[in-house]
């Protein structure tokens, strides 16, 4: 194979194979094929090094090879390839694209400083699947700058909608198949966060995606993994890409979800499209330069069908967590609260010296350090060593759940003979033997 066309065709085929491997979650195979693709494309370009009359092919192949070098994190080779491309007679548009590679990816001081180059391929891949939003202010009082409060409100609305979509669809799919689904819900929600994978600050552009295949940890069944692979695409399609004014789509939503469920998924997004907002919302291409969809306010008849007529009536009484700041008053000599605010999230470190409830008592060789997190309206506690993941609506309840799980696992695991333990159970037993000194007498 010694002509540029054959080498280039080979490179594109290898790249397609690489992306197929990545879609299957085979990161190592993806990286190997990506390297091979780069090698062939670079060879194709270098065959044209001295052929300055072979434009645009010469500069396009150097640009293409440089792009692959960047994806392979070989930034020094990428720089050589870009300058090789520029050394010919590239057309103005290709010249601009070569220079863009230099400024945006190879010589970008922000990327170099923060060491973000190492994660570059991961981001590049995720950007292919991301939703690219742009917020543009309606009033140009601050030129094209968008008010931070509006950005935060918009991002919170997407976050909320995603979490509701995830949980509702997970329960629909697995509530009959997973007896311990209540334990699973908080765990898998934390494994599938929304990610920022790109942004731009003239107006505000942001690319948001959930990584459902590449690096999300998973010890689950293949059925769950297959479901998880498509869930973000389903979210994109149902909530953003399909037209909410299209009756076919409305009927689809009504068949799939109850009014309470569709209210939870769609209300916040519909709020982001309100006429009274001070920004326009749209979907764009990856570089935020081309509008692909403008989100207009949803009409009242459609809103009534999706989120119901009186959504306010369905709001339940909310338990609040207050953060209070207190100090001893110099006047009264007593502790007084001088400020308090509602907490929406937070965390506390606690230490358990011994483990005890009405089921039993375990004396520990050393304290167990735990972290209880709060993300309104629930408290969460994760203890990966024993695969304990609990959530509750109060601090004490989540702590009690942890203790109950701990004692239950201890009794269960220590009663199984060593030669009957699975690898995970053996690991748990090893930990329990190291931390539990002895079992106390049941008080009852």
């Amino acid at each position: 194979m010694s002509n540029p066309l054959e080498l280039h065709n080979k490179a594109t085929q290898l790249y397609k194979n690489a992306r197929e491997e990545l879609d299957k979650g085979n990161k190592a195979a993806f990286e190997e094929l990506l390297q091979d693709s780069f090698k062939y494309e670079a060879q194709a370009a270098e065959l044209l090094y001295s052929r300055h009359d072979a434009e645009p092919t010469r500069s396009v192949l150097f640009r293409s090879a440089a792009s692959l070098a960047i994806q392979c994190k070989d930034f020094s080779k990428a720089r050589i390839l870009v300058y090789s491309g520029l050394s010919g007679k590239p057309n103005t548009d290709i010249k601009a694209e070569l220079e863009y590679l230099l400024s945006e990816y190879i010589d970008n001081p922000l990327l170099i400083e923060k060491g973000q180059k190492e994660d570059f391929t991961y981001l590049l891949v995720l950007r292919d699947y991301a939703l690219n939003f742009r917020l543009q202010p309606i009033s140009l009082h601050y030129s094209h700058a968008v008010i931070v409060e509006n950005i935060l409100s918009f991002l919170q609305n997407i976050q909320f909608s995603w979490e509701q979509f995830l949980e509702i669809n997970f329960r629909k799919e697995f509530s009959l198949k997973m007896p311990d689904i209540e334990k699973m819900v908080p765990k898998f929600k934390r494994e599938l966060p929304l990610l920022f994978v790109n942004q731009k600050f003239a107006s505000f552009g942001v690319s948001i995606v959930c990584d459902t295949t590449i690096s999300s940890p998973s010890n689950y069944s293949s059925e769950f993994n297959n479901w998880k692979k498509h869930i973000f695409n389903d979210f994109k399609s149902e909530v953003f890409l399909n037209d909410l004014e299209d009756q076919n789509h409305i009927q689809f939503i009504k068949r799939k979800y109850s009014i309470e469920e569709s209210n939870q998924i769609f209300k916040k997004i519909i709020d982001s499209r309100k006429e009274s907002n001070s920004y326009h919302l749209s979907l764009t291409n990856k570089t935020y330069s081309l509008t692909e969809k403008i989100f207009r306010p949803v009409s009242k008849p459609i809103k009534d069908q999706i989120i119901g007529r009186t959504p306010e009536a369905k709001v339940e009484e909310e338990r609040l967590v207050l953060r209070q700041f207190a100090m001893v008053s110099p006047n009264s000599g007593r502790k007084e609260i001088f400020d308090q605010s509602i907490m929406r999230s937070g965390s506390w470190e606690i230490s358990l010296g011994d483990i005890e409830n009405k089921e039993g008592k375990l004396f520990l060789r050393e304290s167990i350090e735990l972290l209880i997190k709060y993300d309104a309206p629930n408290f969460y506690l994760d203890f990966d060593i024993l695969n304990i993941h609990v959530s509750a609506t109060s601090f004490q309840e989540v702590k009690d759940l942890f203790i109950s799980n701990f004692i239950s696992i201890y009794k269960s695991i220590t009663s199984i003979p060593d030669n009957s333990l699975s690898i995970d159970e053996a690991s748990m037993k090893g930990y329990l033997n190291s931390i539990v000194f002895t079992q106390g007498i049941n008080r009852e």
Partner: protein
Amino acid sequence: MLLTKKFTKYSYFTEAFQGEGIDYWIGFPTTSPEYDPFNFLKARLEVSGIKKENASNNVALRLRQKSKQAGASDGTATEAYISIIEFNTPKALFKKK
């Protein structure tokens, strides 16, 4: 591809890597007398799809947006074509930039 073959002299299609994504290129097939083994990428093809047209997202608007992205008008930009497909009707637009 069909539109390209119908409205241009090119029938070779390929992709090239551009930063984060890919772009499409067209040229002469190897059997053509105009085929040049060292310069086989002749024009860029910009492909765009719309699932279903509406007031804010339609073929005409998309064409205007794509046309605004044109390179220099002094003849030093690469030859380029725009192809926009609307799937619901269906209809298509194919234009030289």
